[in-house]
């Protein structure tokens, strides 16, 4: 066979019974090649590098091979090792060099380091299985098969304005016993809930971090509850290329890669995209007191932003800051995202604390950040959605000003705050609500409404239910005397703090949730809901549940019965959005009639038709979207009228007149009991009185003109 005559398929060196030869510098990481494995790793300052090989799970390595000097090209060490059992192998490196933290160097050859380019990590194979704390190499680099049979799967490339995003924690989604799935808390379990996701009407799941992290990080006994505080959310990456093994039912067999890919393939088959929440702003290595896992022992000065004294800048609020605009680190991030897009068919990425990605090596914001530009113009990522959480813990707030290169969308934090304040009954918000409904042209004039990822609740902060059940955060269970978590919740408990039997209060809460879902689903831009909000999940007022592996984070599926009306409403309002292209424009409204229908594309109203009250004391706004202008006038849709009333009493809203032959039909009235609060698309009853509508106090009404 032709392959056998290549001379690089044969060893040239032998040591401790291990045969090896000079390797290929690219690709970085460990790659299967004929007869062996190619290892390649770089360090700008190391003076020596040793490959360390373990049999899976063994306490001591079976071999350590120092890279001969001739195996180094520039700063890259590469070697092919022959006859290794790739399925049983775990590998790491020792890097020798100076330990001078004040100069930025933290080399320590007594530590075995994990490969930043490893494709799987062993050591936390089963969620919260007690690790061996004396392990000399706790996070072990492993190889994976990269031959998954995708058949005809392909990222869906759904236009972003057509998405309804569902933010989900892999474990939290199905870990509760009420989920009644076979392998609770895993990728496999999500697969068994696909029918549910389709029924709900979402078409994109955004998975909270699934890169390998250590749930044991900073774990301790909870001083309040006596339980264990863990890293549940996972915003602390151990390795950027590896899926979290503990999220896979087959993690104990090392098959997490296949399990996750199977999930992606099945979601795609059902028309659901997969977006990953990625954390490139810091790593799990912490500050100068943290553990050396990988990066800091390989190339501390390259991977991290350091102060002149050699301490870690802390723009992430978690100890260190990845040096993203260093050319070497930038390439790693790019390699990583390309890998997930190409090998896992991921449809999009949401970047945690993305403002950090626009800072230079000293932390100063860049006007033209090379990393963000590279990602925006990358050919492999060209069809991926790129979404920024456009702020960081160092005070850089870039909502509306994040460097977008025509590609980036943003979590719109202003949308969240404005809608919350409006629903709570604050004054002076009509102008902002008008912006919310339009995809916020004041922020995104040049970028279009699709730059705005709209949400009212997400994993951070109150759930949608808690937003209307608590005035104050209740974070005692986090063990920090209620000092953690944000205080600017803009929430209102509807009269009683926390759970209550008061039917009136509970009814109002349900109505407020429906108001929130209604506004979210009729706003231009891209709506996102938090998993469980469709059934009214509660975290009992805790607005920062990052550390709880219990009911505070597990979706309680019993709520589907208890709050059946919320779920019923949620799954119909998602359908309403998806049925009406006029709600999903790619371009901003022009406030004029360019389609010749006799109506402008958007018009504002109030208790009087054609007269919106934008004054400071107003709590009323109605909006009419002309169906002839749907998708910039290319599609004919129904005309949609949305009346929002945050005043506490019912008010008559005068309805704008429709063209001859058309009449108003009732799609949504959140003031009505379940069954009459929302009508399925196509079954909306015609209004008896076409001239005006009595909009209940703190209610939303949506009419369809057809």
């Amino acid at each position, binding site marked *: 066979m032709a392959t056998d005559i290549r001379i690089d398929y044969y060893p040239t060196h032998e040591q401790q019974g291990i045969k090896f030869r000079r390797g290929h510098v690219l690709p970085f990481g460990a790659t299967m090649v004929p007869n062996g494995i190619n290892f390649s790793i770089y360090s700008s300052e190391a003076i020596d590098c040793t490959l360390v090989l373990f049999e899976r799970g063994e306490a001591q390595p079976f071999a350590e091979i120092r890279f001969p000097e001739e195996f180094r090209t520039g700063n890259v060490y590469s070697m092919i090792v022959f006859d290794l059992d790739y*399925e049983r192998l775990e590998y790491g490196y020792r890097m020798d060099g100076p330990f001078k933290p004040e100069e930025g160097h933290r080399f320590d050859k007594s530590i075995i380091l994990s490969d930043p380019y490893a494709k799987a990590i062993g050591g936390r194979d089963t969620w919260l299985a007690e690790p061996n704390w004396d392990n000399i190499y706790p996070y072990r680099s492993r190889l994976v*098969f990269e031959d998954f049979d995708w058949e005809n799967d392909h990222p869906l490339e759904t236009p972003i304005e057509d998405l309804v995003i569902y933010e989900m924690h892999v474990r939290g989604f199905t870990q509760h016993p009420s989920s009644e799935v076979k392998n609770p808390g895993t990728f*496999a379990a999500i697969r068994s809930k696909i029918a549910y996701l389709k029924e709900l009407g979402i078409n994109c799941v955004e998975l909270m971090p699934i890169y390998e992290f250590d749930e044991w990080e900073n774990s301790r006994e909870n001083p309040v509850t006596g339980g264990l505080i863990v890293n549940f959310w996972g915003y602390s990456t151990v390795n950027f290329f590896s899926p979290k093994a503990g999220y896979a*039912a087959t993690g104990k*067999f*090392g*098959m997490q890669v296949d*399990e996750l890919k199977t999930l992606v*393939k099945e979601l795609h088959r059902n028309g659901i995209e997969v977006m990953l929440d990625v954390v490139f702003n810091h790593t799990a290595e912490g500050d100068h007191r943290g553990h050396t896992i990988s990066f800091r022992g390989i190339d501390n000065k390259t991977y991290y932003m350091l102060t002149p004294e050699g301490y870690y800048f802390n723009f992430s609020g978690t100890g260190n800051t990845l040096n993203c605009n260093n050319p070497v680190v930038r390439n790693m991030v790019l390699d990583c995202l390309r890998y997930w897009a190409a090998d896992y068919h991921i449809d999009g990425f949401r970047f945690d604390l993305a403002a950090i990605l626009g800072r230079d090596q000293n932390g100063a914001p860049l006007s033209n950040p090379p990393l963000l530009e590279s990602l925006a113009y990358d050919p492999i990522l060209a069809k991926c959605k790129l979404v920024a959480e456009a702020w960081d813990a160092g005070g850089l707030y870039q909502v509306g000003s994040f460097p977008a290169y025509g590609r980036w969308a943003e979590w719109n934090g202003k949308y969240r705050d404005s809608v919350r304040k409006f629903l709570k009954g604050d004054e002076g918000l009509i102008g902002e609500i008008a912006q919310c409904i339009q995809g916020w042209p004041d922020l995104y004039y040049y970028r279009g409404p699709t730059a705005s990822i709209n949400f009212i609740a997400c994993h951070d902060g109150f759930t949608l239910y808690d937003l209307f059940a608590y005035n104050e955060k209740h974070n005692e269970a986090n063990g920090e005397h209620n000092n953690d978590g944000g205080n600017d919740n803009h929430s209102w408990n509807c009269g009683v703090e926390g759970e209550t039997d008061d039917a009136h209060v509970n009814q109002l809460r349900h109505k407020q949730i429906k108001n929130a879902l209604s506004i979210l689903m009729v706003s231009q831009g891209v709506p996102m809901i938090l998993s469980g909000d469709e059934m009214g999940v509660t975290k009992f007022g805790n607005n920062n549940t990052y550390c709880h592996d219990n009911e505070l984070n597990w979706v309680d599926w019993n709520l589907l019965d208890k709050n059946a009306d919320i779920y019923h409403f949620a799954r119909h309002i998602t359908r309403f959005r998806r049925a009406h292209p006029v709600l999903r424009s790619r371009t901003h409204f022009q406030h004029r009639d360019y389609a010749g229908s006799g109506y402008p594309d958007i018009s504002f109203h109030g208790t009087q038709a054609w007269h919106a009250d934008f004054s400071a004391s107003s709590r009323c706004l109605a909006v009419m979207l002309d169906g002839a202008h749907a998708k910039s006038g290319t599609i004919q849709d129904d005309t949609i009228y949305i009346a929002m009333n945050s005043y506490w009493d019912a008010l008559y809203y005068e309805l704008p007149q429709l063209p001859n032959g058309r009449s108003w039909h009732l799609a949504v009235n959140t003031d009505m009991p379940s069954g009459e609060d929302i009508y399925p698309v196509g079954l909306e009853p015609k209004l008896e009185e076409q001239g005006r509508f009595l909009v209940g106090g703190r209610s939303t009404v949506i009419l369809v003109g057809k």
Partner: protein
Amino acid sequence: MKVTLTDQEDITVVEVVGDIDSKTAPEFERSARQATDQNEKIAIDLTAVEFMSSAGLRVLLMVYRNIKAQNGKVVLAGVSEDIQDVMSTTGFINFFTIVGTTGEALSILKQS
């Protein structure tokens, strides 16, 4: 691990005894290739296999691809519940017809 090939008319039965992991998978692969070279109808009897690693599952998938290219058929018999569980979670199961015994596998293959 031990692999035995037996021909029954135009069907080759591949009987595996023992665990299939990355150490034994190459031998399983060699025998499986031999089987697919001989016949387009293959029954793989895994009754005596307690553990199958990722490498083993990949050999099965290779057999499936190989047989499918020849418009043939492969049926697995006696797959333990544990292995079926892993196959299901990782998507491998979608490619295969799985039955309880080699006898059932043969009757399916004879009809095809």
